[in-house]
Structures are given as C-alpha cells and as structure tokens.
C-alpha cells in the first residue's frame, strides 16, 4: 500500500485487537522511549559539553513516541469508560 502503512501493517491492525497490539508493538515502543529518556538523563549528567549539545537529537525519537504513547493512553481510557 504505502510505505507508512504497508499491507502487512494494515492487516495486523485489522486482525489483532488493541489489547494484543498494546502488549506487543506498543510495549516495545514504550521500552524504547524509556531507554531513550534514560540515555538522555545519563548524557545530561555525565556526557560532557559536546554530548549535552547533541541531546536535542534524541527529541527526534522521543517526541513522536511520547505523542503515540499519549494517544494510546487516551484511547485505552476511552475504551474503559
């Protein structure tokens, strides 16, 4: 289909429940997000000047994943209500 949502991803989204996707792909994304935030804090504390200057780059991954995490939490809460 398209590169962003190819056929396999479309089929997976249609075939699997949100519960299943939350405990597989979403869980991995949340672990990656936590790791990136941890790396950011370690680099901020001990990284030296040039690494601290590069911390902005981690935002390239952190902000989109935080956005998806927020949407996932809101969706799950709406499901429960």
């Amino acid at each position, binding site marked *: *289909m398209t*590169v962003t949502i190819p056929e396999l991803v479309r089929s997976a989204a249609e075939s699997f429940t949100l519960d299943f996707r939350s405990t597989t*792909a979403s869980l*991995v994304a949340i672990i990656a997000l936590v*790791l990136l935030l941890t790396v950011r804090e370690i680099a901020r504390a001990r990284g030296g000047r040039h690494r601290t200057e590069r911390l902005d780059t981690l935002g390239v991954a952190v902000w989109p994943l935080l956005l998806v995490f927020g949407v996932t939490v809101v969706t799950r809460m709406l499901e429960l209500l």
Partner: protein
Amino acid sequence: MGGLDRMRAVSPAAAVAVGYGAALAVAELALVQGGLLAGAACHAVLLIVLLAHHLVAPVTAYHSLLVGLALLPIVRLVSLTVPILGIPYLAWHVMVAIPIAVAAGLAIRSEQIEPRLMGLGARFDAVFQLAVAAVGIPLGLLAWLALRPRPVISGVDPVQVVLAGIVGVLFIAVVEEVVFRGVLQGVALRALGSSVGAVSVSAFAYASMSIPSGSPGFVLVMLGAAALFGWIVEVTGSLGGVIGAHALLAVGMLVVWPAILGGL
C-alpha cells in the same frame, strides 16, 4: 587492490549508509517473518543504536546521516503502534503522519538542514513540475498491477475521492517525500558528497520500507519509483513535482485503478 585495502578505501559515510540500510531491510524482514513483536523489537534496537551512535561519534560528515536514517525506524514504530479503532484506512494516514512530521521537523531543526538541500526554495518551473507529477499516473497503475491492494473506498463517490486526494497529497505524499527525498536524501548528499550515492540511499531505504507489502514486484516498482523521484529532485532541486507524482501514484493505486480495473 587487496580486500583489506578495498575496505579501507570505503568512506565511513558509505559504510554507515550500507550497514544501517542493511539493518533496516533486516528489521522489515523480521516484521514480515516474525510478526509484530519481532519487527517492532528490531526497529526499536535499530533506532536506539542509531541515536547512540550519533551521541558518541565524533562530528564527521556522516553525523547528520545517522539522524536521517533514524527517521525510518520511527516511521515503522509509529505505524505499528498508533491505536486505530474502527476508522477508515485513509484516516489512519492522518494519525500516523502527524508524529512522523514532528520527527522530521525536529530532525531538520537539530541537524540544521538547509531548505535547498531538501529540494525546497528552488526556482519552480510549473510546467515542468506538472509533467513530473503526471509520471505518477502510470506508476500508480504499475503499483496497482504489482500489488492488487484491497480498495480503500467503496465505489467512486466524488466526496470520498476528493477526501482521498487530500489525504494522498498532505498525509502520504508530502510526509513521505519530506522524509525520504527531503531529509534522508539531503543528509546523504551532505555525507557522501555524491548525487548517485544520495539517490541510492533514499531509493533503497524506500524499497526496504515497502517489504511489508508482501509483494516482490511491488518492492521493485517502489525501488524504481523512488530512484526516479530522487533523481528528479537532484536534477531540478525541487520536491514539488515528485510530491504531485507521489500523490497521483497513491490515489491511483488505492482509489482510481481499483475502481476502473478492479473487476479484471
């Protein structure tokens, strides 16, 4: 020249492009063969390795290329994890495109990628760019023949076709072209110093990300389309025409050709 000499002759930027490009293809194959968990895990590892490499590597020519390549696992992680509940397929693209656009915007800012490098701000020859956009029509037919995807709208309702056109332009073509031909090809050109190298990096990355379509023919069509789009951006210095071509390719493949030729 011996094998070791040949390895030394390869520039670090080329080694980075080839190595991480191969890792991207492996992550996409893991998604196809191993399922959601394996695919997401491979992409997450690749993302963390790319950003850690960027954090610890000395400032070199390939520094920005690492960030450009990091956009690709972000694209896949976002598309795998955005919660999609009972909304039409085309609307999924809106939900997926927003976080990807945020990532691309942050990459452009953090790496200070000049608009000229991304095919923006060049002189715009409207007639030539329209001719470039028209290339998307036969490419859409080729892509549909190679993949035969399920139609995304029922029938040819004019309102749905217009909505599909808007989504196709704004949330598929603009976002994918900015990521692949804008940011990735731009930083690859900066790193490799070669147009052929930069176009190859963006084209192979695009084809690799098409692997989960499940059709080798479709992957080949996407490789050809991406190489053509990349070459046009290099020659004209503008993303405008290829955004039009990409939108026509997507709308043709998903809406128009299934409606016209779907019964064949």
